[in-house]
């Protein structure tokens, strides 16, 4: 039963105004999701540099998810539109290089969508758990 014991490492970048608040709401409503998800707060999803995503994979993350305000609702009016284009091209490139496409995701979660945040994380973690360890992108040297 090796597979079941695998605990994936998930990095979630959440924008301060919508998704981070959505994650807080999931907490307020006690909607559980696996502890494998670790959230990094950024002011806006457009602050997430593709380099951060690659960095996470390099350091051993099994999945990276970026959450932002729904398109049209960005606190900074247009930040998530840029995120959408940037991540579209990055994910497509990672897929092209043979990295499993399930390991990357963008999800729009509003401050009111605590339930969506929890269900998104549950779904993402279960997909990554099925995929198993991220061997293709891990930089072994960087693991202690």
């Amino acid at each position, binding site marked *: 039963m090796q597979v079941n014991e695998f605990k994936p490492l998930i990095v979630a970048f959440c924008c301060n105004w919508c998704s981070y608040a959505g994650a807080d709401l999931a907490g307020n409503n006690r909607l559980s999701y696996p502890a494998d998800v670790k959230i990094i707060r950024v002011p806006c999803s457009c602050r997430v540099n593709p380099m951060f995503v690659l960095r996470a994979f390099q350091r051993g993350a099994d999945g990276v998810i970026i959450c932002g305000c729904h*398109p049209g609702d960005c606190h900074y009016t247009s930040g998530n539109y840029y995120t*959408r284009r940037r991540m*579209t091209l990055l994910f497509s490139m990672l897929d092209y290089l043979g990295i499993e496409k399930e390991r990357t995701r*963008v999800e729009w979660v509003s401050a009111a969508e605590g339930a969506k945040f929890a269900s998104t994380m549950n779904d993402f973690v279960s997909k990554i758990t099925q995929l198993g360890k991220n061997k293709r*992108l891990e930089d072994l040297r960087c693991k202690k």
Partner: protein
Amino acid sequence: MQKISRDKLIKKASNLLNSGIVRCVLGWKRGEFDYDITPNVFTTEKELIDDFVWNDFCGANLSKYLVSKTQGVDGKILVFLKPCDTYSFNQLLTEHRFDRERAYVIAVPCEGMADINKIKQITNEGISSIEFNEDTLSISTLYNEEPIKIAYDRVLSERCLNCKSKKHVVYDELLGDDGEILESNRFDEVEKIEKMSSEERFEFWQGELSRCIRCNACRDVCPACTCEKCVFDNPESGVENKASANSFEEKLFHIIRAYHVAGRCTDCGECSRVCPQNIPLHLLNRKFIKDINEFYGEFQAGEKIGMRSPLIDYTTDDIEPNEAVNRRDS
């Protein structure tokens, strides 16, 4: 074979030099062998007559050198640009990397450039000289009395076989006749890779990119890589240069590099030309170009000055990242 003669280029450049319209000439310089050619700055007619070259090995895109050569000194620089080089020229202007007034662009029509590696695959025994004729070229070697004759298109470089444009998008003066923007099959190879399974793609790129020796030639030659300080040279960036620990390191380098030039890459193909390991790096850039065309509409970087790159633009109904990746499978 190039239709415009070397003499014509030298004569043009000398006139402009001697009349004081330009201060120097950015061109191609003869090396030890016929195919060894490097970008060079010429300041006198004599230098031009002695060392200037215009032949089928002048693949080097000279636009990038304007960034450094126009700085700190006065006067105009004459630069010879082939059609594909003019796109880089415009892109650099879009990014304010040099002053348009400082360059005097002479557009040179291009019949496509030869790939020395292809020639060496045909014969690699002490090539002494290579002569280009209309549709053929004759290679003289130290060991054969008779030169070897081969069809020109057999040695044409990959990027020229898929030439996207024979049209100069900018110039001050045109030599000969200008061509047209072409329909090319440049995305065929990208499509071939896309059609592979995820594992096959991983194996393919692992095989290609693991040969990287991190010589930085691709970056150094890239006309989109003109940063004052490259992130790979900057200890503050978190991705600074270091010896690669494993195959992912090269991947990281090449993904970041391709990403940095995405939306700005004109597909000039210089990265692949200079790679000593013959890694098809242009296939990374072309993937981005193909995606951009598919997702956000046709975009050719450098077509016009001041164009807004798709990555610094958006529409409210752009495709979602995960949808974009999944679409290819369905």
